[in-house]
Structures are given as C-alpha cells and as structure tokens.
C-alpha cells in the first residue's frame, strides 16, 4: 500500500516557483483550470497556448517532463473512455478504413482529452512544487473553512499510519492461511475494515485529548507563516489574466 506518502507528489527543487507562497500558486492553478474549462473545443489554438504555458511553468519549476507524463497516467481511465466516444456517438459520420466515425464524437473526444490532460498537468505541477501541508495552509489563507483544512491536515498526517495498520492486518491474515479467491471469502476483509474504522476513531479521540491537553479550544492557532508578497500576487494574477484573455478570445472568435 503506497498510498499517503505526501512526498511522492513533490519534486524537491529550489526553483522560484517552489519558493512562492502557496495561496498564490493555488489561485493561479484554479484560474488556469477555469479558463481551460470554458474554452470552446473548436479553438484548438487556445489549447496549444495553454500547453505552452504549462510547459514553460514546468521548465521554470525544474519539474522533469517525464515526472509529469508518469503522473498523467492517473487520467488514463478517462482517456480510454474518451477514445470510445467517436464510435458510439451519433450524428454526421466520416469513414476511416471502412469504419464509420462520428464527427460530433471526435470533437467530444478531443474536448475531454485536451481539457483532462491540461487540468491534470497543472494539478501535477502544483503538487510538484508545493508540499501538501503548504497547500492546505494556502487553502486556509484563501478562507477555506478551518473545519475542512483541519480534516485534510489530519488525513495527510494519519493516512500512512492507517495504511500501515491495514498492511499489518493483511499480514496477520495471510500468515494464518487466508488467501481470498471468491466473494464468499470477503467477510474477514469487511470485518477488518470495521476494526480499522473503530481503531481510527479511537485514535481520533486520543489525538483530540492530546490537543485539548495543550490548550486547544476549537481553533487551530495561526503559526505566523510568511504571507504572499504583492509581487507574488501580481505574477499569479497576471497568469490568471493571461489565461482568461485566451479563453475570452476563443469564446469570441469561435
């Protein structure tokens, strides 16, 4: 179980992008994704510009393209789904090697592929240059309710422990000859999931006691992190404005 290792997403570098405050990076990434999402699919040139922007950012951040490409395999299921659309969609058909392909379907495929890959790349880039706790802190600065950011923070902190416990349970089962092959053998897995839930809940209670015993009164203390500078905001919003301009141009032209 390799889940939950916050460093797996991160590329350790000392680039200017790594050093920026997390909140401006989140805003930039969100603005980028929004622009990509509203760009009409016929404006292929706009998608080319977005791709160039991602490539330039990755270059500035010294994130290897191989790293991005490997991470992009996460969207593979959507890609496979998209590849089917031209064959099942209705409407005008073109014939390729004797197979009828829907023109509307082709556009649909292109739309999903371009937007999914661009959106995923920029998220990969964001997590490659910002550690997860930093992202959570950035969300806090952006006024995401403390309840959500606290839950996310604890999840990141304890996910590995829960994964470890799960692994130990599996080892304990295997060492007593448990080798599930059929659905009817799934019962122990279900009950171990239940036990895991109870254990996590109990850990939650103990963590809460530890917090309360150090004076926690319901509000996570702000620990005085460096706020984003004006020039960081300017660069971030500049990028968002550029993407929005491309999206607007695409909307007007097509």
């Amino acid at each position, binding site marked *: 179980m390799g889940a939950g290792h916050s460093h797996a997403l991160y590329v350790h570098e000392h680039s200017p992008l790594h050093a920026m405050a997390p909140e401006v990076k989140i805003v930039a990434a969100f603005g980028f994704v929004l622009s990509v999402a509203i760009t009409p699919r016929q404006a292929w040139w706009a998608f080319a510009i977005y791709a160039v922007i991602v490539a330039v950012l990755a270059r500035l951040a010294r994130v290897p393209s191989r790293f991005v490409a490997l991470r992009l395999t996460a969207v593979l299921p959507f890609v496979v789904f998209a590849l089917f659309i031209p064959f099942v969609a209705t409407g005008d058909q073109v014939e390729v090697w004797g197979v009828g392909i829907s023109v509307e379907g082709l556009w649909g495929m292109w739309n999903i592929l371009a937007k999914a890959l661009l959106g995923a790349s920029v998220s990969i880039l964001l997590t490659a240059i910002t550690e997860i*706790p930093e992202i959570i802190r950035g969300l806090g600065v952006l006024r995401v309710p403390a309840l959500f950011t606290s839950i996310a923070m604890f999840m990141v902190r304890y996910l590995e422990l829960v994964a470890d416990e799960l692994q130990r349970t599996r080892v304990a089962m295997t060492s007593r000859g448990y080798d599930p092959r059929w659905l009817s053998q799934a019962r122990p897995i279900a009950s171990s999931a239940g036990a895991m839930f109870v254990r996590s809940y109990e850990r939650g209670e103990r963590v809460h006691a*530890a*917090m309360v015993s150090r*004076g926690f009164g319901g509000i996570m203390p702000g620990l005085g992190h460096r706020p984003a500078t004006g020039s960081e905001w300017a660069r971030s919003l500049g990028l968002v404005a550029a993407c929005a301009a491309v999206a607007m141009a695409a909307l007007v032209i097509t």
Partner: protein
Amino acid sequence: MSAPIVVSGLEFTYPDGRVALKGVDLVVGSGERVAVLGPNGAGKTTLALHLNGIHRPEAGSVRVGDLAVIEENLPEIRRRVGLVFQDSNDQLFMPNVGEDVAFGPANLGLGGSELEQRVEEALSAVGGTELAGRPSHHLSGGERRRAALATVLAMEPDVLVFDEPSSDLDGSGKRELVAALARLTMTQVVITHDLPLALELCPRAVIMNDGRVVADGLIREILGDANLLEENRLELPYGFVLGTSDD
C-alpha cells in the same frame, strides 16, 4: 508552597460502565518525581487524564497548586500540567515537529519571535533542534518520543505526567529519554510498568491496582517487597538485582 498535585477520593466511571477509579488519594510534592506502577487496567492512564482536566472527577477532587481542576481553571491547569501520551503518534498531529511544538504555546497566545524562541528552547532541552523541520511520520521511535516531550515542555509546565514513556523504545532510545528526563527539574509523575526505568528516575513509587492506590513509599522498599509486587502483577526483569546504594 502548596503541593503541586493533590488528588483526594477521586472516582471515575467510563461511559460504557467500566469503573476505572474507586477513590484515589495521592499527594505529589513540588519538585518530586513519583513513579505510578500497576498492572494493565489498574486506572493509571485514567488518573493521568484527570491531572489536566481531560476527564472531570465524578466524586472527589483534583487540585494543581492553588487551583482546583474545574472548568474555569482549565486553561491555566493545562499550562501547568503537561501530559506526554503513551503513543507519540497521538501527540504529534501537525505537519512537522516545529509546528507541533509551537501548537501549545500558540494556544496560550504566544506569537512571533517569542514563540520561535519557546520552540527552540523546548527542542534543545530534548536534544532535538535538528528535528524542527521534519515531518513526524519520518521520525524514529526515540526521536518521536523526544519530539512529543518537547511539545509539552514548550508549555513551560510545572508538572510533567508521562504515560508509559518507554514503551516502543529500543535500548538506546530509552537511554536518550532517561537522560532527557533526568535533566528536567519540574515535578514529574511517571506512569509505567517498566520497573528499572522507574527505579532509575524516581525516588518514590505508588502502586495502583483496581482503581485504588495500594502502596506508596520509597521505590527501593516497594521494589524490594516481592509479595507486594506479585500481588499487583508486577515483576522485575529476570536477573535484575536491586542495588543497595540509595542514589
């Protein structure tokens, strides 16, 4: 000066009906180091959780210095009494050690350079200044223990309460912990069934069994009483010889 901790007639029942404490009396003097020994399920941890108000007494009372452990005194009680939990993973919940150490004093209202200084002092007291930037889940068992101790020291408590401080530590991890604890001068209550550790750290011991204090005295006398230990399911390690010198 009044004793830092006075527990009298303390009773407590868990919501599931399990009676954990059946009238505990305990006085711990200022600067004293006391070991609380006893078998599993004796109520040791439950007692610890009363000392800074995580649990509230059902009957009887707990006082810390001149303050009773009641709702309006809780912020100050929690500053005065630091609890170091059995599983350090429960104590280290922030993204990295430095932030974890800062959590307590920040709740007390400290900030800026004052807070930074507190964190630095607490970490250096446990010999762990290099741990500040590290995420807690990448620490070794010994480092995690010392980091957990630092989170409590940063509150500048008058009393430290340890719940099984040596569990899950290897030999050298235990050595480092003992060295760190021996340097601290504040009042300490050490809950453990690691008898050699108790002997090394504490001149006085209390045995709890079945929700009551059943013995209280010099640790050498208590550990020297084989019947008393056996009655309370305690056992010195095989081959362990109680030295004769009194420190």
